[in-house]
């Protein structure tokens, strides 16, 4: 009796130890405990170090006056503004270069990707040369070259006149811009309405196609309406059309809009580099569509352009979109290399703030948080698009 009682307890302990459930809980407690302990140890050390160096903690510095200037931005900013506003300028600059870069890289990438599959031998070879040449060299090096080229351009006095009021000089690219006028408002409203109308038209066209089988050229009609209707409104309301053309005054240009050398170099570098990867994605996407699809479409009497648009591309997109998403995210993250050529993006502004306040932890954490949020938003958007183009299965 007593022997049984003695052995019963170890047996149940052993059963407990060998139970997969208990082990699972135990391992998780151990790992979480380890991570928490490591985190606590690091935080403890950091706080001790910060206290020893007399550095403040917390996000209080965001409200203080920054005291440094930022070369360019999309919102008004001066050295008397707060760190928070300085960081906002940086975030907007990052977004600006990322959005324009994504658009440009997609256009170049699509063109080069299709060109690599061209039946024209010369075009295909040139596209291959571009892809293999660009993607095997680090982006940072390419950025240095682009920046070197832009700053080695002639001074504004000897600027290269591209024509139509576009000037290239070592102060960047100068473009003419229309002067904003109060009477432009109606035209802007019409433009917005035409944009919404495009989607309504598409819905109607698809619906009619499904019902009756008659296609309607919704894209060309809609785009034409988007261009023509606002122009018509401008003529009807009699708004003056005035262009601000860059003009040489003294040592620099006045008027027009300008792209700074840093921005131009970063945009060129990011787009050209990412486009080489996008081209490969587009190529593999198109190759993934069986050739029989093209043959079937051609034998139905569809033109080559329609075959590409209605049969090949929709199927290729399924293969293209997921890796394309990660290339877009790469471009966003790579825009942080701006810091190396002096474009005031988020990382470079945060860096200045860190150097001034010494609050490295907060600065780095804020930067990472912003990138995470933007990456997440971008990938949500792309995943939504992906779910629209993905193959619908049972």
């Amino acid at each position, binding site marked *: 009796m007593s022997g049984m009682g003695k052995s019963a307890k170890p047996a149940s302990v052993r059963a407990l130890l060998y139970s997969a459930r208990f082990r*699972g809980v135990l*391992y*998780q407690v151990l*790992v*979480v405990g380890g*991570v928490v302990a490591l985190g606590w140890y*690091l935080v403890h*050390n*950091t706080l*001790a*170090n*910060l206290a*020893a160096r007399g550095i403040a903690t917390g996000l209080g510095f965001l409200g203080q006056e920054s005291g440094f200037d930022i070369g360019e931005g999309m919102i008004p900013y001066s050295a008397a503004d707060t760190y928070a506003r300085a960081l906002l300028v940086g975030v907007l600059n990052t977004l600006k270069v990322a959005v324009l870069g994504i658009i440009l890289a997609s256009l170049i990438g699509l063109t080069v990707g299709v060109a690599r599959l*061209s*039946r*024209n*031998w*010369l*075009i295909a070879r*040139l596209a291959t040369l571009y892809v*293999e*040449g660009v*993607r*095997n*060299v*680090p*982006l*940072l*090096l*390419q950025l*240095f*070259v682009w920046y*070197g*080229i832009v700053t*080695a351009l002639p001074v504004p006095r000897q600027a290269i006149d591209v024509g139509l009021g576009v000037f290239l000089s070592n102060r960047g690219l100068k473009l003419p811009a229309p002067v904003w006028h109060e009477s432009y408002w109606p035209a802007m409203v019409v433009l917005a309405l035409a944009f919404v109308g495009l989607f309504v038209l598409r819905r109607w066209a698809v619906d009619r196609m499904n019902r009756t089988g008659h296609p309607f050229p919704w894209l060309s009609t809609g785009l034409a309406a988007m261009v023509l209707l606002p122009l018509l409104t401008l003529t009807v309301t009699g708004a003056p059309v005035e262009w601000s053309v860059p003009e040489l005054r003294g040592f620099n240009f006045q008027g027009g809009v300008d792209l700074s050398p840093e921005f131009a170099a970063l945009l060129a570098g990011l787009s050209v580099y990412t486009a080489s990867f996008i081209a490969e994605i587009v190529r593999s996407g198109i190759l993934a569509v069986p050739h029989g699809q093209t043959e079937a479409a051609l034998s139905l009497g569809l033109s080559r352009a329609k075959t590409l648009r209605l049969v090949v591309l929709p199927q290729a997109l399924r293969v293209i979109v997921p890796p394309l998403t990660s290339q877009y*995210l790469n471009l966003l*993250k*790579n*825009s*942080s*290399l701006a*810091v*190396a050529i002096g474009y005031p993006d988020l*990382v470079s502004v945060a*860096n200045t703030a*860190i150097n001034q306040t010494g609050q*490295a*932890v907060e600065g*780095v954490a804020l*930067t*990472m948080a912003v*990138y*995470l949020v933007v*990456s*997440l938003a971008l990938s949500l958007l792309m995943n939504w698009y992906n779910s629209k183009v993905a193959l619908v299965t049972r």
Partner: protein
Amino acid sequence: MIKPEDDIHAATAAADVEEPSSAVVPAPALWKPLGWAKSNLFDSVPNTILTLLALFLLWETVPPLIGWGLLHATWSVADGTAGACRDSAGACWALMGEKNRLMLFGVYPYDQHWRPLLATCIVIAMLATSAPRRFWRRELGYAWLAAIVVVAWLMWGGVLGLSYVETGLWGGLPLTLGLALLGIVLAFPLSIVLALGRRSNLPAIKAICTGYIELVRGVPLVSVLFMASVMFPLFLPEGVSIDKLLRALVGITLFTAAYLAEAVRGGLQAIPRGQEEAADALGLPYWRKMRLIVLPQALRLVIPPIVNQFISCFKDTSLVTIVGLYDLLAASKAALADPEWRPYFVEGYIIAAVIYWVFCFSMSRYSQWLERQLATGHRR
């Protein structure tokens, strides 16, 4: 002229004879290139326009480039100054002769340059030896261990008659190669743990691993390197400091591990579930199941993605320039900081780009070859 019908008759008639259809007259050799050009370059109006545009582009760019890079280029200067380059209209490749040491080895003590040179050669030789599959044996691992010890001894010195060189003076190609290689090698075990953790049934472990991977993949390497360079010193207890190079290496490792973990996870997902179930049925515990059954199959699939990750790691090490280390790119930049040679920055960057390109291109070709080699077992 032969009509198509005649052609077919001729072919059927000739079918019994050894010679294939004699009616198909091969075009004279002189016209072959023309025929090829017609079918590949000028077969339709849009194609012809494209070809002409491309030819125009080439005509505009290639002859000036050849003139600049080869015909009018200055290959060497006698007096060590850029004087001869200033007089010529071409490229100044003399830069290579004057600054190659600085570009390749950074600020490593000049009279000791044979050491990083030898170290680089050993590493490249080891990489080349590791490429063919027939050398993938246990001995290769020992050879790598020995090579790493020798390379570390060459770079650091301090024992066996070599003078000590601190890591702050390391630079150039050896630094780039070393950071990329060590980054991948150190990240590999971590990535396996992370990938297994992400596929684990235990929710807390899965959450921690997923969180880490997604967090790191969501932020740029620059910010990870900044974190490594400014925050790591704060993390450590007072009085303990770590080397700048080591900090960058830790940053690169932590960053690479997250990306590698996703590659490993891809490999794990490709292994049929039945393999794990069979291992469970045999009563293998988790780690033995992974070590003996799942990982050997999964990692084999993951080798090409690992090579690709190595290529991007190799390119990404150029970012350590931003936190003040002298890798190949930073050393090239430093060489161009000399006012005498600054106007020839394009040549300098081209030289650095060619070095990067040769490494990356050959590795990507290798990765494609490897993919074909390893795919045999799965091809139907």
